[in-house]
């Protein structure tokens, strides 16, 4: 059964100089699988992720022919209904732990806040669950991390804390916006295997937003390639390196390769037709 279905999603920002369309008619279906969304900055991939949770503030507007999650119409859902979905059923890991964690609140309190508020858990119960969540994302010293402020953690630790926080309510769908871009390759591999494990064992759906094509090709099942607010190509991740669309090919070709030639890297030729 389809977990999330999005039809003709549009996100528009009304600015002084007229409307700016960040997402222009995006449609996709998601089951319990790993869906990657790739594209350059400004391609609308983050806005697509946020729009699913209706997390776009005015002057931004969301329009869609249909957007249903598990049989529930997200476009018609009231604010209290959305509040019940956000976090509990659909969770989102934001890009940068520096800006997404509260800088003046200890990590432990932030992890426990949701449990106390949403699930009315007791202090000790919440603490036990928070510790377990930190262990689940392979934080070796969870007691110390619980007692630390976000600035006392490295980028990789912060990123894992955010993932832990989003996984506590056991969501059905996780939207991860560049969850590993602040991490080193070796830590990146670790975080990915944690996410992978969760998709497999909990049967969670995952939308993985990234600008790193090679990472997405390795990690996801299916990939949407976005350019200027539109999906230009949809393909199985294993076929990404043999992509047909010139934009996808261009993005791949301009990456340097270990053992590649030292000649100038091919520049991306932006063709106006792709955007129309």
């Amino acid at each position, binding site marked *: 059964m389809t977990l999330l279905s999005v039809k003709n999603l549009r996100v528009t920002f009304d600015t002084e100089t007229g409307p700016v369309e960040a997402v222009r008619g995006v449609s996709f279906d998601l089951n319990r699988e790993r869906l990657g969304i790739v594209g*350059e*900055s400004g391609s609308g991939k983050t806005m697509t992720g946020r729009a699913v949770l209706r997390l776009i503030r005015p002057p931004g507007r969301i329009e869609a022919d249909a957007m249903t999650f598990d049989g529930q119409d997200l476009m018609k859902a009231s604010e209290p209904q959305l509040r019940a979905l956000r976090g509990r059923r659909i969770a989102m890991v934001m890009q940068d732990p520096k800006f997404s964690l509260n800088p003046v609140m200890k990590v432990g309190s932030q992890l426990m806040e949701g449990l106390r508020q949403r699930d009315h858990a007791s202090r000790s119960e919440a603490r036990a669950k928070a510790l377990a969540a930190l262990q689940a994302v392979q934080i070796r010293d969870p007691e110390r991390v619980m007692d630390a402020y976000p600035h006392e953690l*490295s*980028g*990789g630790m912060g990123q894992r804390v955010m993932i832990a926080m989003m996984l506590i309510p056991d969501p059905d769908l996780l939207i991860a916006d560049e969850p590993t871009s602040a991490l*080193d*390759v*070796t*830590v*990146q*591999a670790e975080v990915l295997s944690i996410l992978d494990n969760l998709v497999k064992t909990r049967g969670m759906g995952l939308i993985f937003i990234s*600008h790193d*094509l*090679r*990472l997405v*090709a*390795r990690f996801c099942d299916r990939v949407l390639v976005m350019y200027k607010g539109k999906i230009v190509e949809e393909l199985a991740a294993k076929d990404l*390196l043999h992509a047909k669309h010139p934009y996808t090919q*261009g*993005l791949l070709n*301009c*990456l*340097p*390769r*270990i*053992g*590649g030639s*030292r000649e*100038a*890297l*091919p*520049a*991306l030729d932006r063709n106006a037709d792709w955007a129309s």
Partner: protein
Amino acid sequence: MALIEIENLSVTFHTSGRHVRAVENVSLKVEAQQSFGLVGESGSGKSTILRAICGMAPITGGQIRIDGKPLPTPRGPNFAKQVQMVFQDPYASLHPRHTIDRVLSEPLAIHGQTGSDAKIEQALIDVGLPPAFRFRYPHQLSGGQRQRVAIARALMLRPQILLLDEPTSALDASVQAETLNLLSRLRTERGLTFLMVSHDLAVIDHMCDRILVMQHGRAVEELSREALATAAMTTPYARALFTASADRMLEG
């Protein structure tokens, strides 16, 4: 004789009673017009080495020599004419309230050089920006254009050596390609020597002749470009790093 010689360099930070040994006993040599890469995870001390060369980190042991001469402390104006640095984040490294013109003319003014008008226009052309960008502010430029300005600023005094601290990791793939091409071209045209830091093995491989792998502030293994391409590393850590980057191989 090597242009940059670093011998048993140690850098220790003292913070609230704790000693953090960011770099321990690292030695390396970079020949003139060579390009040398430092790779490793965050916190491995690779950026600290660049900062130590510039006098921005407390050196607690060892010696740095440029062109055979030990560096004076403080570094002084001649050092700035010889060595310049390009930072990772073009959003943070350009003053938000200074025009590009001011950013580029400042080094000339400090060093009492004349003819800044022509030099600034030429500097912009050299990095592939239209001269009309001169009177813009950083926020009116894209990330890639800002990094070009940062490179132009570093080259204003015609240095021999460029220290590059993750110069493309904040940029999109296509913009990264353009910036790397620009750096390669400038290196050939001006005979520059690069000391470059990156966590991306593919970028380092594309740009550098030799590579030093670092972990926890120590040098793990020095590799030639050929050794990297043929996976001829001998230490487990260098191999782990290579395996984690396997999707960046040529055939991948």
